[in-house]
């Protein structure tokens, strides 16, 4: 049989869906799944279960968690999601290899987090169409499917390349190129010295290289970190707070942030510009935009603020519509309601600490059918927990999704950066262990190749070119 390493990928599409499936295939798939899955009572059972059976439990974000002491409930803080998991031992599986599939809630961030956790067990991210390829090569598909499989490989690869290129235009790819140039120069120096020891000397080179590697590693680590942040920023849920002036929008933002970020006064129209903040709710990232209250106004500056607010609302993934429950509904509220059509909305009936004038039943008739209504108070924090739970719930059930797309390439890039960094660490180790210089270039070359994957460049004859262009060799 066609035996290969173990791979994983998101098997469901990138479209909105109730559940997401992460598929792991290969000889280490069960071992990998077992590291990160436990039952709801905290047992790791996956390596002992029968083939083709479903199990209920949790995916944990830290595979090193000690599960033996069941009284210790620490592990519960590491739960990413509650899932169903299935083991299908080869050859009775889609690819013919051992397969583990994790069915989780369909939000993109959850699926992605689980995939990253799977990859951290030493599994490789699958290439375009790789499951299908393995299935075919292992005789799990009949001949008529060959054409389709080849097309899938072809088109998915084109897609991955295109989206990768789109993301990489600009700074990041420049940075990667710069790092690669530095690395290949060092390899070329070592190699030319090996090929022509009488012309080029490597005396005292180890410590010098160590310094250079530290510099490169530092930049790589920065990239990995910024990648993480950048991704959350881009892929967070775009959330916009809307409401009439003085409904309590800025107070809501401050409450969610747990700090006084927005200036709050009793004067209607205090917030004239747009304020943006990132709020985290158990791993979900909300990019919250506080807007100027929407009303018909003659004030020029305020008017610009109102227009902007409407614009933001149109692009939002989620709208938090704040209604002043202590005042009568107003025609400005109705204007906002017209914006809400087609949008995921949570209606917040604020100032529930004061006497409520607005009736929930009345509101319900006006807002879109699926909108939830929650009574809150930004003064005594009533209802804020319920709001957070509601957002989480919507997210994990796939009702909420970031409008930004290709995360596959992101994960691939981060994996490549991580690989490069590990290779550089191996070089450092070789230097510290006092290994001869020719050992350095082996891992330097791996780092160079890993970085090349990000910008779609192969190694080819780069080294030979570099040697000849930078070093004067030969008789």
């Amino acid at each position: 049989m066609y035996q290969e390493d173990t791979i994983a990928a998101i098997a469901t599409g990138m479209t909105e869906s109730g559940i997401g499936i992460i598929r792991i295939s290969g000889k280490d798939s069960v071992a990998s799944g077992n590291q990160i899955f436990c039952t709801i009572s905290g047992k790791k059972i996956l390596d002992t279960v029968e083939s083709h059976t479903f199990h209920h439990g949790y995916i944990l974000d830290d595979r090193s968690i000690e599960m033996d002491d069941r009284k210790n409930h620490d592990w519960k803080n590491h739960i990413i999601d509650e899932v169903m998991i299935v083991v299908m031992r080869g050859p009775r599986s889609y690819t013919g290899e051992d397969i583990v599939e994790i069915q989780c809630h369909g939000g993109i961030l959850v699926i992605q987090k689980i995939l990253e956790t799977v990859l951290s067990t030493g599994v490789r991210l699958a290439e375009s169409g790789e499951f299908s390829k393995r299935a075919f090569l292992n005789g799990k598909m009949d001949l008529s499917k060959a054409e389709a499989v080849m097309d899938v490989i072809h088109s998915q690869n084109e897609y991955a390349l295109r989206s990768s290129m789109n993301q990489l235009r600009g700074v990041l790819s420049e940075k990667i190129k710069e790092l690669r140039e530095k690395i290949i120069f060092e390899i070329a120096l070592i190699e030319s010295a090996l090929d022509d020891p009488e012309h080029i000397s490597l005396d005292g080179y180890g410590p010098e290289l160590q310094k250079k590697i530290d510099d490169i590693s530092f930049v790589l680590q920065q990239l990995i970190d910024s990648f993480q942040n950048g991704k959350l920023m881009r892929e967070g849920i775009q959330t916009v707070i809307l409401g009439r002036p003085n409904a309590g929008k800025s107070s809501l933002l401050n409450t969610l942030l747990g700090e006084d970020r927005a200036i709050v006064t009793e004067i209607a129209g205090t917030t004239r510009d747009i304020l943006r903040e990132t709020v985290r709710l158990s791993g979900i990232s909300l990019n919250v935009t506080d807007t100027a209250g929407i009303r018909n106004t003659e004030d020029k500056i305020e008017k610009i603020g109102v227009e902007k607010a409407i614009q933001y609302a149109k692009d939002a993934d989620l709208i938090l519509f704040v209604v002043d429950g202590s005042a009568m509904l107003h025609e400005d509220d109705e204007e906002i309601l017209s914006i809400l059509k087609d949008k995921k909305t949570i209606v917040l009936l604020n100032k529930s600490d004061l006497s409520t004038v607005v009736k929930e039943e009345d509101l319900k008739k006006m807002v879109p059918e699926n909108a939830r209504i929650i009574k809150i108070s930004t003064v005594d924090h009533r209802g804020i927990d319920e709001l957070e739970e509601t957002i989480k719930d919507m997210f994990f059930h796939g009702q909420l999704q970031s409008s930004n797309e290709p995360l596959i390439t992101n994960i691939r890039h981060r994996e490549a950066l991580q690989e490069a960094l590990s290779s550089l660490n191996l070089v450092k180790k070789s230097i510290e262990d006092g290994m001869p210089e020719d050992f350095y270039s082996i891992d330097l070359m791996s780092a160079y190749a890993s970085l090349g994957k990000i910008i779609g460049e192969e190694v080819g004859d780069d080294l030979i070119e570099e040697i000849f262009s930078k070093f004067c060799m030969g008789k």
Partner: protein
Amino acid sequence: MPEIREKVDVCVVGAGHAGCEAALACARLGLETVIFTVSVDSIALMPCNPNVGGSSKGHLVRELDALGGEMGKNIDKTFIQSKMLNVSKGPAVHSLRAQADKSEYSRAMRKVLEMQDHLTIKQAEVCDLLWEDYSCEGEIAEKRVIGVKTFTGAIYECKAVVLCTGTYLKARCLCGESITYTGPNGLQAANHLTDSLKKIGIELRRFKTGTPARMDGRSIDYSKMEEQFGDEKIVPFSFSTDPDDVQKEQVSCWLTYTNERTHEIIRNNLDRSPIYAGIIEGTGPRYCPSIEDKVVKFAEKDRHQVFIEPEGLHTNEMYVGGMSSSLPEDVQIAMYRTVPGLEHCRIVRNAYAIEYDCINARQLYPSLEFKKIKGLFSGGQFNGSSGYEEAACQGLVAGINASMEIMGKEALLLDRSESYIGVLIDDLVTKDNREPYRMMTSRAEYRLLLRQDNADLRLRERGYKIGLVSEEQWKEVQAKKFLIQKEISRLKNTVVGANSEIQNFLQSHGSSFLRTGTSLAELICRPELSYEMIGEIDKDRTDSVSAFKAEAEKLFGTVDQKLWNAVKEQVEIEIKYEGYILRQKRQVEQFQKMEGKKIPDNLDYDKISSLRLEARQKLKEFRPVSVGQASRISGVSPADISVLMVYLEHYKRMEKDEG
């Protein structure tokens, strides 16, 4: 005039380093062989540098020797200085280089050829290839070579031809404005064969290379130069040479440098260089640039090294390494005389550049047979390589495979994971080489496994199976393998405790204390310790080793001290670098999987619509033999390889269904 017609098995065209190996291999395998040369006096001539080996080239010679080639033995007989390069580096890049007595080298090789049964030397220029259309199951499939014709009209009918024409095809030599239409060293060029090759459908191209001047040794002032000595303990090239036989007195080489004045003269006369004036059309190698090239391309360097090397013991001619040139004679004299020690030099032979016809080796299978012409093989500089060692290795492989084909046996195909020769041939027949190809250690991705010290362990068996390595030599390697394996496993399984004797031993060697028991192998891994050193605490060594040797002798014959020394070296390397070696072995497994997936000759790439257009064109053009080879063609992406693999599986099942 009556026609001369001879009937032989193999015709080898050219008697340089490739031709000699090819002819010897064929004759030794029992095939009637003729080797043609334009001059019998130029057999195994070294027209450029007076040495054999060097970084990675030393590996090639070792591998050649393990397979049953002649170069290693011949240089062991005729060297005048020897040096192991890179000894301060890891074992993978240790490389042997020896200065040769050029005329002795040539004479010794000629003698080997003359003594060889089934081998005839013939001084004649081969002008024509004779061929016929070759049909397979009624269809004309390809062409097949059936003989050669010399300038005098003599016809040699044969079953295979090996072309090793070196730099002789339509050669011309340039020294400034003066151009001669000769081969190297003023020898007669081969001007007719090119047309015949074109007629049969071979595409030719033009490469160039160059050589520096030779000086009269009496005119050189060595007191202004640094003396370069050979090694005190000489290691032979050949696995069958007794190390005791090569310990001899050596001659020195000398080091000096160019300077600003040299560079100024060169810069002022660049317009008289045939390269910069555009007279030379051929592509030259970047790794051995002329001094003009160095001065132009590395303008920031204020000096370049110059090595003065003797050409032999019975001549006072000295080779000026590092200063090859095609500048005119007057500029050469002025330029050389600026170099310290060469102020009063007299030039015996001028430096010159040489242009010649050769092929893009992508027309060849990895067996070095032409894809379109059955029975026609080629090796050496004709294939677009450079260097005596590269040539010899190709010659050997081409000769072996010509023989294998005639005898109806499987071809010798070496891959990148088992030898530098495999890397060399794969690069030549797969990549788009635009200059004469030279071996370099950085070209071998699995070089930790491809060491010069283990070439016999890697390749002796192949040589034995082919028939070029004797039973005795093969048994010796088997004994070596057996002992290495036994001793490594003993060292891994012998545990020493953290007792005072061990701690004292460690302290005395500047090594840290043990906390718990550890194996002897783990101690050898420490950089400050070695196999030899831990003998002190390895109580069991003497007895166990004697037992192993006795066992090996029973199985394979005598185990002498030299063999045991070689075993110890391997044990130490295998243990010390085990982590790295294992990693490369895992990579090799992946690599071999792809090499093992063969692509049928008649695959129609146009039927694979999911291949990108560029990939399809490249694959159609080069027709790789395996998926592995396909993956190394530039312009073929990993996704194309996946598509190709799926199609091959599809194809295989279709065939099964039909058949």
